[in-house]
């Protein structure tokens, strides 16, 4: 069983942006245009290397592609491989490769629960949460006990803030999944609904050996997040770094750790932590912020790369990294109004503590704290405790 977490966030549902945000993005697109396109040239040397191909990005011959259309036992592991490559590298193209394998199977009359669950995972990674839920429900009609479907469903529901339903999904896991996974699933939601301390204790008490390997990083990231929300940053850093020992490629853990360091203005350590992860947009954002904190003027290139990536997303009609974009406007561009507009759009789609946090911060920076009311209301309604949110202006 593969564990999906809220942090797997390469993309989200295409949305039409408007008003202020639109204007800000327009400016952004203009400034990015300059670096986006170069002048075509003819290389002088035949040996010049133009591209290094990552594993799994090779041309597949037509007969090989036909195989994935006729043999489900070949299609499923290949799609699974592509999805895991996307996770490990942050390379969004792999989501497309996986989808290409799954689409012919999705369109068949006799549905396959496994195909639906894998495709829902891709949709979730693109933050198309409603569509993902629809396919998961279809999968559960075909296989009512499918643990992967219930776990993915719980994750999606948690990301969009539908906690009671997320808990219910975790409950359905009990029939077929490892008990430790059920505890992780349940406690991660409990920690957001008024039971933070007890959930923290319960997850900390889970012996690491009881967990399947892929769930170990998940446990650490939950512990790290919970400690942060409790206000115990040293403990949080400990958990996150432990997690990175177990799963160095887990970019959710790495991002969370970078955020923690940046909150304490430990920019040099952040850069150290993120060295070699520049190709991932969310990491690039944190690198840029770290350079700004250091006033070393070295963030210009990463900033330009980010601007270009945001502009391309905008032209594609996708607001893939809206949360990152809000942070970019707030912490890099120092445009609180644009940040607030992006954060409000983000809040329409996803409701993780980080989404509430960016909305609170942006609203305060833009001197319009009343516009963060939906987030405050949400935190209050679910008794969601978060020390960072209190620091950003939420009443304790």
């Amino acid at each position, binding site marked *: 069983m593969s564990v999906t977490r809220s942090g797997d966030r390469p993309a989200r549902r295409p949305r039409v942006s408007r008003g202020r945000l639109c204007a800000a993005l327009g400016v952004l697109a203009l400034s990015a245009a300059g670096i986006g396109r170069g002048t075509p040239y003819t290389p002088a040397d035949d040996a010049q290397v133009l591209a290094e191909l990552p594993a799994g990005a*090779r*041309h597949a011959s037509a007969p090989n592609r036909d195989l994935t259309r006729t043999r489900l036992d070949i299609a499923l592991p290949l799609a699974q491989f592509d999805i895991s490559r996307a996770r490990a590298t942050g390379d969004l193209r792999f989501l497309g490769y996986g989808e290409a394998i799954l689409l012919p199977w999705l369109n068949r009359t006799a549905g396959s629960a496994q195909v639906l669950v894998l495709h829902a995972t891709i949709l979730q990674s693109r933050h198309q949460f409603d569509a993902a839920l629809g396919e998961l429900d279809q999968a559960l009609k075909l296989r009512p006990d499918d643990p992967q479907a219930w776990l993915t469903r719980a994750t999606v529901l948690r990301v969009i803030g539908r906690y009671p339903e997320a808990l219910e999904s975790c409950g359905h896991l009990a029939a077929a999944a490892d008990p430790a996974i059920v505890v992780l699933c349940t406690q991660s939601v409990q920690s957001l609904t008024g039971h933070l301390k007890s959930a923290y204790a319960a997850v900390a008490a889970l012996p690491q050996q009881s967990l399947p390997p892929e769930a170990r990083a998940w446990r650490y990231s939950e512990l790290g997040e919970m400690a942060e929300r409790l206000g115990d940053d040293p403990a949080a850093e400990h958990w996150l770094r432990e997690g990175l020992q177990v799963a160095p490629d887990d970019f959710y853990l790495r991002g969370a750790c970078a955020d923690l360091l940046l909150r304490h203005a430990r920019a040099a350590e952040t850069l150290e932590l993120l060295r070699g992860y520049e190709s991932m947009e969310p990491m690039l954002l944190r690198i840029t912020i770290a350079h700004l904190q250091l006033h070393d003027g070295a963030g210009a290139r990463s900033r330009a790369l980010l601007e270009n990536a945001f502009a391309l997303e905008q032209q594609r009609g996708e607001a893939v990294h809206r949360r990152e974009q809000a942070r970019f406007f707030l912490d890099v561009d120092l445009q609180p109004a644009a940040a607030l507009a992006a954060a409000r759009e983000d809040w329409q789609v996803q409701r993780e503590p980080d989404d509430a946090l960016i909305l609170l911060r942006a609203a305060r920076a833009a001197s319009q704290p009343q516009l963060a009311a939906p987030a405050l209301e949400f935190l209050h309604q679910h008794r969601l405790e978060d020390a960072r949110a209190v620091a950003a202006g939420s009443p304790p």
Partner: protein
Amino acid sequence: MRRLIACALLSLSAAAAQAHIASNGFLSARVEGTHVSGSIEMAVRDAELAIGVDANHDGRITWGELRASEPQLIRYLEQHMQLSAQGQRCALALQSLKINDRVDGSYAWLSLDARCPVAVRQLGIRYTVLAEVDPSHRGLLSLTAGAAAQTGVLGGADAQPAFTVYAPSKGRAFVEYLRAGLWHIWDGIDHLLFLVSLLLPAVLLRRNGHWEPVPRARPAFMSILKVVTAFTLAHSITLSLAALDVVRLPSRLTESVIAASIVIAALNNIFPLVTESRARIAFAFGLLHGFGFASVLADMGLPQDARLVSLVAFNLGIETGQLAVVLAVMPLVYAMRSSLMYRRALLPWGSAANASLALMWLVQRAFLPGG
């Protein structure tokens, strides 16, 4: 050797600093009349996925390998991208492979040149590049026409989006469509032949099986006026209905009936059946001629913001051209009306020539493939 190593290190560090973004192709196009020029770019990495470029399978794509694959790449892109103007396919040619370095890696760059059968007003772009291997791939379009620029997204659910590239001001549209209407009456010689066939006997009277010249100008003038007005009224109605997409007839049918209308009008001059109410013939067939005018307008397309103005201007142009012909021909015909040559030779043999020419068109349009 040292230089080579330095080069490799540099390219490695550049690769490491590239942000992973979803797969995009870049299409840049400029429209000028029937001609579309620009460039298409595909990430070198995506080219491998599409056609297989890495000949030595070492996981690196060199300029040499890409260059060797140029013909396949061009063939692939030409098969997966089609340009059309108002639905009519343009002939696409891609060539001169180059490299363009963008922030997320190197792109194969090809110059693009397309010739369309009609002036481009609505540029349709069917784009299925990589659709089979990466459905999240999109083509990002930047399109310019004159001073106007726009962007668009290609591929995905809407496999064939169309972009309006021509949006003139109302005044400009008026002038342009007026001129188009004026010219069309000359290009569309069949409309003129029909009208002239109906008008030739307007200077004569049919009495006891013989043609006689009209004694005064007034009845001739009234007869001409009636025919021209009936024809104008009729084709204006159907031209408007068709141009505004209210009614649509297959062009083979309208073109055939237009040819038939000339045959009938011309034969009627040789073996007169209808002598008093030629205006009715003018009206009845005028309805069909209107659809013929409309097909010309459809090729041009009506500018989105000036549909009505352009339609009226086009129609006015047709009427003006038609009136010019009537004013040039009819006084001559009137002057010749008393001569035997006119009644015995010009009218019957001229009409016979008209009829046979139109009969040929009729056969061509109605029965030959592709008419």
